[in-house]
């Protein structure tokens, strides 16, 4: 019994204290509202909200998703209701819960990102900002900010000038050298990093001779991507010294612990919510059980322990 009380799952992430290291991956959990029948949001370390832009976005045509082996491809196209309603409705909703709030931000240009970040600086209930740089950069012919180190460095700097909350830059895995991207973001002032966003993939419907998602390509997520995500978290943890939120295919406590041992301070559960709405709770309980079994008193003991 004594031993049990000694397990401390809390995490200090950029000065924000989380009761445990488990949050949700942006875009897979709405604002938490949709999962309230399954998950007591008070139990999560943090809720990470669906990407929000300064104005509403329509997103892509349907079909927006396709199932693939051990995962899915999505091309939602960052549909979102815009900042006004997000602040009024979603942030308000989350204020009733004793959990941290990470707001995921998207934009089509540096100016749009900065405007969104400025708006979020004025409101209460936002603990951290997560910047999704996998958005199409309209000025640069639709190339994502997240695959060019200098664009990433620049957008991080601009955001940091205005942000009141700590800034987490969310890295795209679709790059040759993830450590280079991590350094570019950290040099630009990023307080933390999260990774991985989805890996660009494609599915073809051979019977209809067409793309399975209307957008042709989409982002691969789910258990299939986990080995790539663990590798990148490890590489980044060994390249920079800011804290990391690890994600990509986490669907069990064992998966989450892999990311923590690779160097992540927190973990996000994404696609797993779709096939196990209780996934976050199972994972929190599983990490706790592992810590008890192994006599781990604090996550500091195992974070990045595999070198």
């Amino acid at each position, binding site marked *: 019994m004594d031993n049990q009380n000694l397990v401390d799952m809390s995490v200090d992430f950029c000065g924000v204290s989380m009761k445990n290291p488990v949050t949700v991956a942006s875009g*897979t959990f709405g604002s938490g509202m*949709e*999962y309230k029948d399954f998950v007591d949001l008070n139990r999560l370390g943090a809720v990470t909200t669906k990407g929000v832009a300064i104005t509403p*976005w329509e*997103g892509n045509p349907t079909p927006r998703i396709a199932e693939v082996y051990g995962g899915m491809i999505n091309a939602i196209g960052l*549909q979102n209701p815009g900042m006004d309603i997000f602040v009024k409705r979603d942030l308000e909703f989350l204020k009733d819960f004793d959990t941290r709030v990470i707001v995921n931000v998207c934009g089509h240009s540096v100016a749009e990102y900065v405007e969104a970040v400025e708006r979020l600086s004025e409101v209460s209930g936002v603990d951290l900002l997560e910047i999704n740089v996998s958005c199409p950069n309209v000025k640069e012919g639709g190339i994502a900010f997240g695959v060019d180190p200098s664009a990433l460095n620049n957008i991080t700097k601009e955001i940091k000038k205005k942000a009141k909350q700590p800034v987490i830059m969310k890295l795209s895995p679709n790059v040759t050298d993830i450590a280079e991207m991590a350094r570019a973001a950290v040099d630009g002032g990023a307080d933390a990093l999260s990774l991985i966003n989805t890996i660009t993939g494609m599915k073809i419907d051979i019977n209809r001779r067409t793309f399975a998602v209307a957008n042709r390509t989409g982002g691969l997520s789910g258990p299939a991507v986990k080995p790539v995500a663990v590798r990148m978290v490890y590489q980044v943890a060994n390249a920079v010294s800011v804290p990391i939120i690890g994600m990509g295919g986490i669907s069990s406590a064992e998966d989450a612990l892999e990311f923590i041992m690779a160097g992540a301070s927190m973990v996000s559960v994404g696609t797993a919510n779709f096939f196990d709405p209780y996934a976050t709770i199972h994972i929190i309980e599983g990490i706790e059980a592992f810590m008890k079994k192994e006599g781990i008193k604090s996550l500091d003991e195992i974070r990045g322990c595999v070198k």
Partner: protein
Amino acid sequence: MKKINATIIEQKYLIEDIFSMWLKCPDITDEAHSGQFVNLYTKDSSRLLPRPISICDVNREEGLLRIVYRTAGEGTRQFSTLKSGDNIEVTGPVGNGYELNASKAVLMGGGIGIPPMLLLAKELSEKGLSRDDIAVVLGFRDGTFLVDEFEKIATVYISSDSGSVGIKGNVIDATKHYDITGDMIYACGPKPMLRAIQQYSSENSIKTQISLEERMACGIGACLACVTRTTEVDEHSQVKNRRICVDGPVFYAEEVEL
């Protein structure tokens, strides 16, 4: 909404590639009504996403829920191999369902859109509509299923692509041919059929509720995979998009662009 491990009470082969399955899931039947659906999960760990299937019937006293489904791919094929006594994970009920506001109802079901019409017909009947006030127009490919169950409570009209049963053609052809009228059309079926009904109901100024399908991921409103285009800006999304899974699957025909 709940996720439960339901026990299969009956699995029955109906016709062609169509099966009927009764599940014991009282937590879901307590809340379920017509037009809603459930999400079923495969046991195959490489196919992770839930399969949305409409509720075809419920037996509330015994906590039983019925689905009638086509083996469209590997997931539904696996469902068809389950036997009574086996278990299956289910979430539901999901969605808004049909509004039971007709005094003379025309139910149009096409193909695998027919099953949800059965619970709807029963609910209308329970609300007091007579056999004559519930016209059911069923469009089959070739062979029929569920027809006798409809006939107990409704007047049934049949069309088929092949002409092998009922009149040759689609549900609109049958509606015109039999001169079926009412103050509310309820429809479920493939998109081309729904488009034709949308046009028919607007031309004839008949209020119409249609049930839509789209590829789903979460099946519970969180991922924005399953949207339909709407004619007006939606309050929730702030754009001309609504989620079929939780804002639908039933919409008034004039609300959506197909």
